């Protein structure tokens, strides 16, 4: 392989400034919304005592899951020794940090007492999956930061491989922890499954790579740097494999539930008669988020088109957000069963499907998290050498003639 030259992006064009301005505005709106929510209480959101986690968690969990997935490209290079992926590694690590930063910001600002975030950092209950995650989040930041350092500083480049291994192990633990936040909820019909941990890992592969590929294509296009088909084709084929793997895990998850009579109610709710959740599952997650991207990525005639690939990446992201909405909110909308075999009713909405409609502030907070991730990545590309000057086939492809 040729020597790869990494360069900062110039970051002076009007396009760059407009992008930053849009992201900055969205981030400010998100922060303003968080302040509004803190002042007035969560009564200004759509969240209730029935749907306790809402759209902010949809964005936050999506971003955190995607963060660990975005690091995959780097891991394939450092852990699995595929030299083809090594030039792609720095951007992969930057995206991982950006996405996690955005996700955690949302999670933190949605707390009932965001002013007490220091309490979360100083008081630990070591039996809590959430507390484990606090360590995993900070461990992930640390591991990826060290990894980036070993990639950028020639004097410590011999440590790149162990740093890559460390980051890989932490990213697997991180997604296991995120999936287990739901998997360990023993009382809820739609969670309570160890399968959620591996499912979240494979989902992270898919979401993270879709974001990676989208950002890679956009940044090379907007900076007029060459990006050859070799890189694109390999990544888009890999994305297809990940999408199919998510479909497999989702199928197993629902089949397992369908086999257990006690889960028939919640499965019927998600798959058949859950209104918005059923629509988001079939249309958002399965058709638009999985099947259409598979066609776009693999169908002869279409799959070479960069626009089709970029569109597929966008659909995978939307499908991922749908999947999070169905999992997090759909799982809570179905009423908790306290007395199996009985019809329940109460003033606290027992036995009825719970309503949720996201309000503007909480939606802006979620979008703000996305924007913060975008700002971290955009500024990172400008100040440090994350992107190779060229990823043309002659540079990136070891088989290029």
């Amino acid at each position, binding site marked *: 392989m040729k020597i790869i030259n990494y360069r900062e992006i110039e970051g002076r064009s009007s396009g760059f400034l407009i992008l930053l301005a849009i992201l900055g505005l969205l981030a400010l709106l998100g922060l303003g919304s968080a302040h509004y929510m803190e002042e007035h209480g969560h009564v200004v959101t759509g969240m209730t005592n029935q749907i306790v986690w809402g759209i902010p968690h949809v964005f936050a969990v999506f971003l955190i899951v995607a963060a660990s997935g975005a690091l995959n490209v780097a891991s394939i290079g450092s852990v699995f020794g595929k030299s083809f992926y090594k030039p792609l590694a720095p951007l992969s690590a930057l995206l991982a940090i950006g996405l996690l930063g955005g996700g955690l910001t949302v999670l933190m600002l949605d707390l009932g007492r965001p002013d007490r975030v220091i309490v979360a950092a100083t008081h630990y209950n070591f039996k809590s999956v959430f507390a484990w995650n606090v360590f995993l989040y900070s461990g992930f930041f640390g591991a990826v930061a060290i990894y980036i350092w070993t990639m950028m500083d020639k004097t410590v480049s011999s440590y790149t491989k162990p740093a890559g291994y460390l980051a890989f192990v932490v990213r697997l633990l991180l997604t296991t922890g995120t999936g287990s936040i739901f998997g360990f909820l023993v009382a809820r019909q739609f969670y309570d499954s160890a399968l959620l941990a591996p499912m979240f890992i494979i989902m992270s592969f898919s979401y993270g790579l879709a974001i990676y590929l989208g950002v890679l294509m956009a940044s090379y296009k907007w900076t007029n740097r060459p990006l050859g088909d070799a890189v694109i084709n390999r990544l888009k084929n890999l994305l297809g494999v990940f999408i199919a793997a998510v479909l497999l895990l989702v199928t197993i998850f629902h089949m397992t539930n369908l086999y257990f009579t006690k889960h028939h109610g919640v499965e019927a709710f998600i798959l058949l008669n859950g209104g918005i959740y059923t629509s988001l599952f079939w249309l958002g997650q399965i058709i638009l988020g999985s099947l259409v991207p598979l066609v776009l990525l693999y169908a002869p005639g279409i799959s070479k088109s960069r626009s089709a690939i970029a569109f597929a990446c966008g659909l995978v992201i939307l499908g991922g957000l749908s999947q999070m909405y169905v999992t997090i909110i759909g799982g809570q909308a179905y009423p908790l069963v306290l007395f199996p075999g009985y019809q329940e009713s109460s003033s*606290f909405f027992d036995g009825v499907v719970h309503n949720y409609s996201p309000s503007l502030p909480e939606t802006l907070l979620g979008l703000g998290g996305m924007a913060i991730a975008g700002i971290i990545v955009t500024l990172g590309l400008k100040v440090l050498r994350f992107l190779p000057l060229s990823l043309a086939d002659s540079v990136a492809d070891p088989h290029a003639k």
Partner: protein
Amino acid sequence: MNEQNKTAEQVIEDYSRRKFLGTSAAVGATLAIAPGITLLDMAQARPADQAASSKNRWGLLIDSNKCATGCDDCVSACFKENAIKEGKKETDSQWIRKIELKDMQSGRTSSLPMMCQHCAEPPCVDVCPTGASFKRADGIVLVDRHICIGCRYCMMACPYKARSFVHEELTDQNPDVPRGKGCVESCTLCVHRVDKGEQPACVEACSSSGKNAMIFGDLNDPNSEISKRIAETATTQVRADLQLNPGVRYQGI
């Protein structure tokens, strides 16, 4: 006199007076009923400087056969005692609620109050990242208002939907029951009353109404009324499959 300005002697004197009143009430309650039968187990007041002990495990026995559909005296008493605004919005706190049940096979209906079940193995305590959700030595599950960050993970974990999140600013609080916007809360088993040797407000209201569907007492004391009843009668734990060993038992469901 302001509570904070009392001297130690005055506090002790006050406490002795309360203890005397509590004991008198207990004697009165015992005398009022036929010898050997005590309807209410009077909790013994614990000195303020003494920590809660695992020698006690406070619990409730609820007889749904005696609990009338439409009666919500226990709910009103709880709201009044804990200064909870009586509202039925989806964002309003409800520490206790009446659940109406209908057997889907037989059509038989029953009614019962549902609140924090004060589990011996509480999932809310397991999942709380900061340790704000905790179980006192005497089995009462509480939230430490000072370290609750309002993440609501405990609400996701509770099998009984027993917890509420305070969605808006609160006014007119009961100083004995501090609450706070942005924190999670639930039935405290009227810990402020229990520590004074009194009954939880819901239990008191239920017996005042003459229904006597709720018994409060020490599950660790084999001679307590609640322990005797549980030893004699078939009782149910809600979601017994989870093996959380709740401190609240039900009869008649």
